[in-house]
């Protein structure tokens, strides 16, 4: 059996890393009531998101209903499965049923709003614990996101993977050289599933795994990109840049980013411009490639970025330089997040203002943000913004945070009051019921069987009535909340 499955952790305590997130999860589960908001677990692939959800259910002795991207997840299906199991308890009634919506950033419903709304509805009505799992938090619809508690899973540091790999080795009765394990852990770049799969792939049919056995099977490796960049920038002499590039096995986009990130500033302005000219030509070829889907063009990008830059760098004394992953990547990931956030915001505004998000952006963003600055509270309430989204409009992160926080608190206290009210009413209803019960009881004694039935019906009616009253109250107070 596949080791990634065989050694999938069964209990939260068996998971590697992310201790704080796991603690939050088990706390969430232990304190779960029907009022607890669902969880969103998000993070890179292969770091234990799905495993932790299953392990949690196992630890809590809960049943699991999983719905992933390979299942059809249109509005109707989600309502039927998640909605059904969410609002009906399991047969025995003894334990709960955990609903896992895996790959939630890939919900088909994200494309059409009906799906997102259906899920939001299911989440709101859930009578069972629910966990959504996603790679990208902002790939989820804003309304869903705001309904949930978010827990992030981080990529695992290479050295934390090694003990687990060693454990698996000893359970399988294999000896594995430590450098080989280190190599696997390094190449997996924080992805433990990939590490276990790699180990499995290189260990089948062997009782000993050496360092050389590992090299052929790995997730896109980053081990020699450093050599390639060093050689391109002239720190190191190689016979053929092109051959080196073949062994590095990176896409030209990535290599281009690396070279640009490590280029630094050249004192000679002419050379500086020439190096950037080569990079920009390479970049154009990449653009051509994706535009035409004609991958032959990649080779020109390669030549321009490698030989073009190398030519400019000629004459540099070879020596040591620290090659670093491009800093732009970090910026890009924040920028990507920003962009997604902005798009959500615009589409949300657009829906309520009956126009395309493009025209919101081009024409109305200025007045809207002026208004938002003046009445931030009502904007947050109307659109259920989070602090980051509000910040886009008012450009003041601290103010945004404090406003959202105060509104959240207000909401909570309102909800508390509501609950209190509900309880009081329930108590009152109970009292009424017991009062009324005594009356028909006397009747029962006096009358025939037929009449007992009707009496029971009467009781049922009373119950229903008091319930609807409570619901009505709840609805009206809710609507005041939203119409604020």
């Amino acid at each position, binding site marked *: *059996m596949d080791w*990634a499955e065989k050694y999938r952790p069964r209990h939260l305590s068996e998971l590697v890393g992310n201790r704080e997130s796991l603690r939050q999860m088990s706390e969430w589960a232990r304190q779960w009531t029907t009022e607890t908001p669902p969880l969103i677990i998000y993070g890179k692939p292969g770091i234990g998101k799905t495993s932790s959800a299953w392990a949690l259910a196992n630890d809590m002795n809960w049943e699991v209903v999983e719905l992933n991207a*390979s299942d059809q997840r249109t509005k109707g299906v989600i309502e039927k499965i998640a909605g059904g199991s969410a609002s009906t308890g399991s047969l025995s009634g003894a334990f709960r049923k955990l609903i896992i919506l895996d790959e939630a950033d*890939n919900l088909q419903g994200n494309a059409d709003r009906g799906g997102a709304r259906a899920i939001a509805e299911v989440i709101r009505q859930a009578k069972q614990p629910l966990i959504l799992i996603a790679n990208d938090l902002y790939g989820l619809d804003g309304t869903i996101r705001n309904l949930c508690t978010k827990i992030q899973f981080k990529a695992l540091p290479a050295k934390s993977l090694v003990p687990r790999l060693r454990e698996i080795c000893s359970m399988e009765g294999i000896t594995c050289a430590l450098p080989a394990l280190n190599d696997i852990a390094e190449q997996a770049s924080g992805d433990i599933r990939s590490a276990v799969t790699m180990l499995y792939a290189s260990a089948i*049919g062997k009782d000993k795994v050496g360092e050389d056995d590992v090299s052929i099977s790995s*997730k896109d490796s980053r081990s020699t990109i450093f050599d390639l960049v060093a050689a391109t920038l002239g720190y190191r002499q190689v016979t053929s840049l092109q051959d080196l590039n073949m062994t590095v096995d990176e896409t030209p986009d990535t290599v281009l980013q690396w070279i640009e990130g490590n280029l630094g500033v050249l004192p000679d302005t002419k050379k500086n411009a020439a190096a950037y000219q080569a990079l920009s030509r390479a970049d154009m070829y990449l653009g051509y490639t994706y535009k035409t889907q004609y991958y*032959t063009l990649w080779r020109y990008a390669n*030549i321009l970025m490698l030989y073009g830059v190398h030519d400019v760098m000629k004459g540099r004394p070879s020596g040591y330089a620290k090659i670093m992953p491009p800093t732009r990547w970090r910026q890009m990931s924040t920028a990507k997040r920003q962009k997604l956030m902005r798009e959500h915001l615009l589409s949300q505004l657009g829906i309520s203002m009956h126009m395309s998000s493009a025209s919101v952006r081009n024409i109305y963003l200025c007045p809207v943000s002026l208004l938002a600055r003046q009445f931030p509270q009502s904007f947050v309430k109307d659109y259920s913004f989070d602090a980051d989204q509000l910040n886009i409009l008012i450009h003041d992160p601290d103010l945004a945070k404090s406003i959202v926080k105060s509104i959240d608190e207000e909401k909570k206290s309102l909800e508390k009051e509501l609950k209190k009210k509900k309880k009081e009413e329930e108590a009152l209803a109970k009292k009424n019921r017991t009062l009324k019960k005594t009356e028909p009881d006397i009747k029962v004694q006096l009358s025939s069987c037929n009449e007992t039935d009707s009496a029971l019906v009467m009781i049922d009616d009373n119950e229903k009535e008091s319930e609807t009253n409570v619901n009505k109250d709840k609805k009206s107070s809710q609507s005041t909340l939203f119409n604020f």
Partner: protein
Amino acid sequence: MDETHAIWIEKYRPHHLSDIIGQPEIIERLTSYVAKHEMPHLLFTGNAGTGKTTAAVALAREFFGDDWQMNFRELNASDERGIDVVRNQIKQFARTSPFGGSTFKILFLDEADALTSDAQSALRRTMETYAQTCRFILSCNYSAKIIDPIQSRCAIYRFRPLGKQAVAEMVHRIEKDQNLTVSEEVINAIFYIAQGDMRKAINALQGAAILGREISPDMIYAITATARPEEIDDLIELCLAGNFPGAGGTLASLLHDRGIAPQELIGQLYRAIMKRDLPENIKVRLIDSLGETDFRLSEGAGSDIQMQSLIAKFVMYGGKNTR
């Protein structure tokens, strides 16, 4: 008689892992999977004609013996690339139990990089949920087009372009079987046109064999509509010498008299320039103009004018070189 009609790439496709030429490390690993009768999900990546499909089919044959087709399913993802394939066909195959006492079956998903990203993400949990009954082998040309979550679930094997020795071994195998005569020069020619793609190599050989049992390099070039490497060198020589009329004439004869496709010619020029000993800055410029022409042709520009303009640029840069 039907022997002669068979396509050689199918006829000579190795049925056993031990018969596969090239990729020794990969074959060694796959062989030990068969010995242990277990395997992880696999992702084969590499250029066309490097043995990905062959390895997958041979692996299935060795795992399942004569009934291999009962437990093996091949899907070409570029034919059926939507999410419904995963939800219906793939799940259907994966969830039913294997035949004949095997512990699992194999689903081979060829050209998996053609799957839409929706379909790929639908595949993620499917690979795990049915891991008991089904192993996946995905094959693709560019692993970058496979989403990370799937890469993380697979053992990745990179198939390298085949070396000259591997091509020679295959050619000799066929030579013996078909009673041909193949000289060292022919091997060189085949290797030159195949560029590490065994399928191309075998196709060229079969094409040439139709013309006669004694194969010559010219037959190989003719059948594949490729210029001889010397002709390409002559063309570049003329350009670098600043002889535009001469270079233009050679170009026209290659394009029109020999019927060589312009993009084929560009590929050959690319390789010739990269091999040539030229100052790096000249090399980069030549390659850049080559790339620009390649792009324009792919966008639908007319080949005659674009190719002549390419040659004119070559002459210009070459002229600087001689000065």
